[in-house]
């Protein structure tokens, strides 16, 4: 945080968002029927910025649960890429901001760019908001993140009590901030307050276990009895994967009627019995044990192999929402204990 840091009084946030809305479709955490999620802010609606972790991750802003990818009728076929205003996500927690970097590796691979995800993501501005009070189920610091981690942010916001500090991270973020007249320069004292908040937040989290050997450990446990034990209580629902900011598996379906139709892409979950079920009826992952192993191996082994880091940001949503309390942190520490001393 340095001399290019700006400050916005909390009372002016509404005006700031209005200004942002002139150029962008603004998504912020909004409460509706007890559920807090990122939705497009309509004028006059109150964003909830002090909410620690939205119930749903902002994943669906770039990657809707159900999305038409093209439509067709007797006159031909039309692709339906996003053509709306560029998107601004305001108030994304650092774990969720990091998830966009991980998802970007999947959706914007040099060889295979996903035009639907990219059309929304490429021109978007991500304003992430530091976590002054990490929750007990948060474990971002196990996975290289942290309550003040700036990965994936264009602009990094810190709550310093009566005001927010805005620090530009990317070139886009820098460009945007310098164009907004209503922002003031932050003082040395403001920056000190932000620094204190950072230290407090980081020290409030438990010391994380070292995960350097996690992938190697998991790779020795393919046939281990631990999968039977955890999967025996798994319900096979998608409360974990659908609330996960980094799960991205999808299915493709055609819906047609009387000479016209659409092809849609929709979220899929490795927890479902239909996941990877083949046309012949054969399923290479026939039981919940195979499917649960896929979920954990994908995050902590295959993703590491392909992308060089874990496919989990430690947001803790699956921890808090699993109906049978399958706790991914417990799983990780269990794996490390099981293999302790067995790896060279």
């Amino acid at each position, binding site marked *: 945080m340095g001399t290019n840091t700006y400050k916005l009084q909390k009372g002016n946030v509404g005006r700031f968002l209005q200004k942002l809305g002139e150029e962008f479709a603004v998504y912020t955490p909004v409460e509706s*029927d*007890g*559920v*807090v999620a990122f939705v497009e802010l309509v004028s006059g609606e109150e964003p909830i910025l002090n*909410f*620690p*972790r939205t*119930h*749903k991750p902002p994943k669906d802003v770039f990657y809707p*649960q*159900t999305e038409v990818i093209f439509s067709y009728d007797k006159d031909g076929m039309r692709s339906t890429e996003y053509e709306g205003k560029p998107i601004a996500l305001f108030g994304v927690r650092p774990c969720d901001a990091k998830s966009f970097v991980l998802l970007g590796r999947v959706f914007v691979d040099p060889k295979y760019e996903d035009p639907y995800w990219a059309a929304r993501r490429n021109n978007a501005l991500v304003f992430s908001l530091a976590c002054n*009070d990490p*929750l*007990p*189920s948060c474990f971002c610091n196990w996975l290289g993140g942290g309550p003040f981690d700036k990965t994936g942010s264009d602009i990094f916001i810190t709550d310093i009590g009566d005001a927010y500090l805005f620090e530009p991270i990317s070139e886009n973020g820098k460009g945007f901030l310098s164009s907004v007249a209503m922002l003031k320069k932050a003082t040395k004292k403001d920056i000190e307050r932000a620094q204190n908040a950072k230290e407090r937040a980081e020290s*409030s989290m438990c010391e994380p276990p070292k995960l350097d050997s996690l992938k190697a450990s998991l790779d020795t446990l393919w046939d281990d009895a631990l999968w039977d034990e955890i999967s*025996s*209580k798994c*319900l*096979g*629902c*998608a*409360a974990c994967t*659908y*609330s996960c900011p980094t799960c991205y598996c999808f*299915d493709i*379906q055609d*819906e047609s009627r009387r000479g016209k139709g659409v092809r*849609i892409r*929709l979220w899929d*979950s490795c927890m*479902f*019995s*239909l996941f990877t*079920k083949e046309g012949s009826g054969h399923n290479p992952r026939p039981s919940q044990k195979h499917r649960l192993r896929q979920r954990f191996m994908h995050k902590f082994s295959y993703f590491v192999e392909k992308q060089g880091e874990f496919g989990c940001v430690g947001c803790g949503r699956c*921890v*808090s*929402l699993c*109906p*049978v*309390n*399958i*706790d991914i*942190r*417990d799983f990780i520490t269990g794996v490390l204990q099981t293999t302790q001393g067995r790896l060279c």
Partner: protein
Amino acid sequence: MDYKKGLVDKLVEKIKEIFAEEKLGLLIGYAKGTLPLRATPCLIESADDVDRLMFDFTCQNNLARYLVDEKKRGDDRRRVGIIAKGCDARAVVQLVVEGQFERENVVIIGVPCKGVIDPGKLRKKLAGREIKNFEIDGDKITLFGNGFELELDMSELFLDSCLSCRYPNAAQYDYFIGEPAEPLGVRDEYASVDEFEKRSPDERWAYFEKEYSRCIRCYACRNACPMCYCEECFVDRSTPQWTGKGNDLSDTVVFHIVRALHTAGRCVDCGACVAACPLNIDVRMLGKRIEKEVRERFGFTAGLDFEAQPAMATFNENDKEEFIM
């Protein structure tokens, strides 16, 4: 709340005996979870692991659901012990009545239930915060988190199903551990349904639209339900496909309505579906309305009697049929 260590000690000691006496191959019970106010189901195959068992007001899952898994695995010849609140026991009975599990292969171990926590209500009360600890004093609970304290009546956190439960103790059991519990005392079981029925069709539709539009089709409700045991659920049919699979409201509503109809005369109102829903959707209203209908028309309550004939699979000349044109 008198879930003192006493009951758990007694439970562990007694189950060790039952394990040997009944030659159990599997015991389905609860263990302490990793989060405050959360227990976790545990499936124990050896008497040596019985010490992990516990039971209290955090045990919200309906364990009868795991009997169906056992059956699907093809292991249904080993004897299975199950720790059962009133609603778990009713689900076991209903599964036996429906021919889904052999009576002689299941040992029902009843425990007194004084209500269980609804994770959705807890989430609403906490408004995004999380707790680190809690204290119980009589019917009061105090929740402690980072920089906050919240005192509540326990009943504010219990599942609606518990608040109108008439069967807190197993109606059928092989063993019962502890003293039978009294029902929580809310007598008008169908009050919310009756109130709802007074609304206009538009208002009722608006309510369902608001609730089901939050659905993300994760199927936690269905998968937590002991009565949802179809080999292949209609929403999973793919050759040919029966319904759209996205979160379009029309498809979502089809799923919820068909599920409610399919559990008619079978639902034991355990609230496991409500407890499992990550988005606090009222998945109980439809089912409760249907349960009322079955009770009024056929005098039938699911899961009380091993000899009962399933309500939807039997005909009695006294059945009310004025609705047939």
